[in-house]
């Protein structure tokens, strides 16, 4: 629980500490300059850029399909969703001119949902596992990353990579599903559901964990919108917004995504928009993703002989369109596990983009850090960072 202290009451023992850029609990190379008297935080200023790899500038140097591996590196924990965000944006740009229209085959759309939702499960496992680990619960984290290996196995058979897939391409996906992909996925999901029950018994219902997270860093809905929070952070504050349901892309409109909201899950001490709410919203989203994977497998049309068949193929022919795309600009956003991933693509008609801009959820989550951390205990800083689920490459790109 956060104390209700005015900053002025902090004594003369105020010190300025560096949390990071190397710190086990900052989820990467994030530096926080914390002013504290040892118990209560007076000021917390983030310092970014330690992983700024110039991905947006690279977008102006490489050809359209060559940028897809770099989108993996924008958010490597949910690389499929990051690939998807860029490819959906480029396809929408191509569709703004009937001469360069792209029709993504239905089978490819279903495969996209399957891999994106499996990756969402994998990403949220890292989020909840790392948050538990930062608060001292090392075992749930190990269970979480053991489950991730199941997802990694499926992806490895699919595209050869465990982490940065370069799988979803402009116009479809890179390879068709392997022989018994659907059966393997279903087997994974079956044992995963049992494991999640055990995971929840381990950590979610743990009194100590709930007490550490309940009522900490409460963010109101208005603040969440004003500070640009997106994804589970926004929904944890009770704002009912999910791009998969409200601005659907691909076949998400047909699947009917159900959206969990924060409801002060921690009981009497909990508030809507506290750390526990954000944690539980992610767990509920994992359940929803399991359902979406199964629904997408049901909708999967059988494979056709040709790769560019509009129903049974897995990749439309886009090479000609990408050599001369329409001139102009577009902004398209998709729902990545960390929230809205908005791509602004500016094209000057050549085979190299003019500008690629990625707006990520973690970047704006950091904009509320200083506001939300004023007056909380030093130990709660770790709770807050864990509940926001930031990955530093999304912040720094």
């Amino acid at each position, binding site marked *: 629980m956060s104390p209700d202290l005015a900053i002025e009451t902090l004594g003369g023992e105020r010190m300025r500490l560096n949390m990071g850029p190397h710190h086990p609990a900052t989820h990467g190379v994030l530096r926080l300059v914390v002013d504290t008297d040892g118990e209560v935080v007076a000021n917390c200023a983030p310092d970014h850029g330690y992983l700024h790899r110039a991905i947006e500038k690279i977008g102006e140097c490489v050809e359209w399909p060559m940028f897809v591996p770099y989108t993996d590196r924008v958010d490597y924990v949910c690389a499929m969703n990051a690939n998807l965000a860029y490819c959906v944006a480029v396809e929408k740009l191509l569709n*703004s001119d009937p001469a360069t229209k792209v029709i993504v085959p239905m089978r490819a759309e279903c495969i996209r949902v399957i891999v994106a939702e499996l990756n969402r499960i994998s990403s949220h496992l890292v989020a909840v596992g790392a948050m538990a680990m930062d608060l001292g619960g090392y075992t749930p984290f190990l269970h979480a990353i053991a489950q991730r290996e199941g997802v990694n196995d499926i992806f490895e058979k699919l595209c050869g990579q465990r982490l940065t897939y370069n799988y979803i391409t402009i116009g479809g996906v890179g390879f068709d599903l392997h022989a018994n992909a659907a059966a393997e996925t279903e087997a994974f999901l079956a044992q995963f559901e049992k494991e999640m029950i055990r995971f929840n018994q381990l950590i979610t219902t743990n009194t100590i964990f709930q007490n550490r997270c309940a009522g900490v860093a409460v963010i109101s809905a208005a603040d969440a919108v004003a500070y640009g929070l997106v994804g589970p952070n926004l929904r944890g504050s009770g704002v009912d917004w999910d791009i998969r349901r409200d601005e659907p892309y691909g076949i998400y409109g047909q699947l009917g995504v159900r959206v969990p909201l924060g409801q002060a899950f921690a009981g009497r001490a909990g508030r809507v928009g506290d750390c526990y709410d954000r944690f539980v919203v992610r767990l509920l989203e994992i359940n929803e993703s399991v359902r979406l994977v199964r629904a997408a497998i049901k909708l999967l049309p059988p494979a056709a002989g040709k790769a560019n068949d509009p129903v049974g193929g897995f990749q439309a022919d886009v090479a000609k369109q990408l050599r001369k795309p329409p001139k102009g600009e577009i902004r398209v956003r998709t729902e990545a596990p960390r929230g809205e991933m908005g791509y602004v693509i500016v094209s000057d008609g050549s085979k190299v983009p003019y500008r690629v801009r990625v707006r990520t959820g973690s970047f*704006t989550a950091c904009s509320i850090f200083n506001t939300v951390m004023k007056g909380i205990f030093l130990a709660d800083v770790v709770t807050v960072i864990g509940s926001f689920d930031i990955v530093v490459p999304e912040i720094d790109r």
Partner: protein
Amino acid sequence: MSALAFADIVERLRAVFPAATLPAIETKTSDNGQPWLLVPANDIVRVATVLRDDPVLGFAALCDLTGWDLLKYAANPPSTDIAIVYYLHSLIHRHHLTLKVLAPRDTGTVPSVSSVWPVANYFEREVFDLLGVHFAGHPNLKRIMMPDDWIGSPLRKDYIYPASYNGIAHLRDGQKFEDAPTRGDAAAPAQAAKP
């Protein structure tokens, strides 16, 4: 709870301002048919406040504030400005709006909208860092991505990559690339970021 089309949003915006103080906004369309609103730099805070507070418009969410250098974009007439783009969204009404402010390249100063949408604090710092546009009234306009002693605005189209930083050369011994970006001495930049 009704989503407005672009033309209706502009009409409502013009109606809300008293006639004497109407800002000189212009509707434009991009080369692929996307509509946007050009706002003069001096009026952006007024327009932003109205867009956020008016109940029919209700743009409470600033989705993105970014920019790009128009130097190499083939347009008629060609421009050397930096385009600052604001993407707005209303969660209640579910409509969107795109605003643009054109900042002159060398002396560009745009008023900050961080008093209207707090998230603009971070977005504007990034535009300042990478494109070199100064935002007047920003509470903490410092570089956010690059080190504080970095010279230049990397996302500009005429940016010259540094050949070394802190005495360490960028390329390894024998590392050669075809068509690599030209690298120059960081001490003599093409342009410097404003303090």
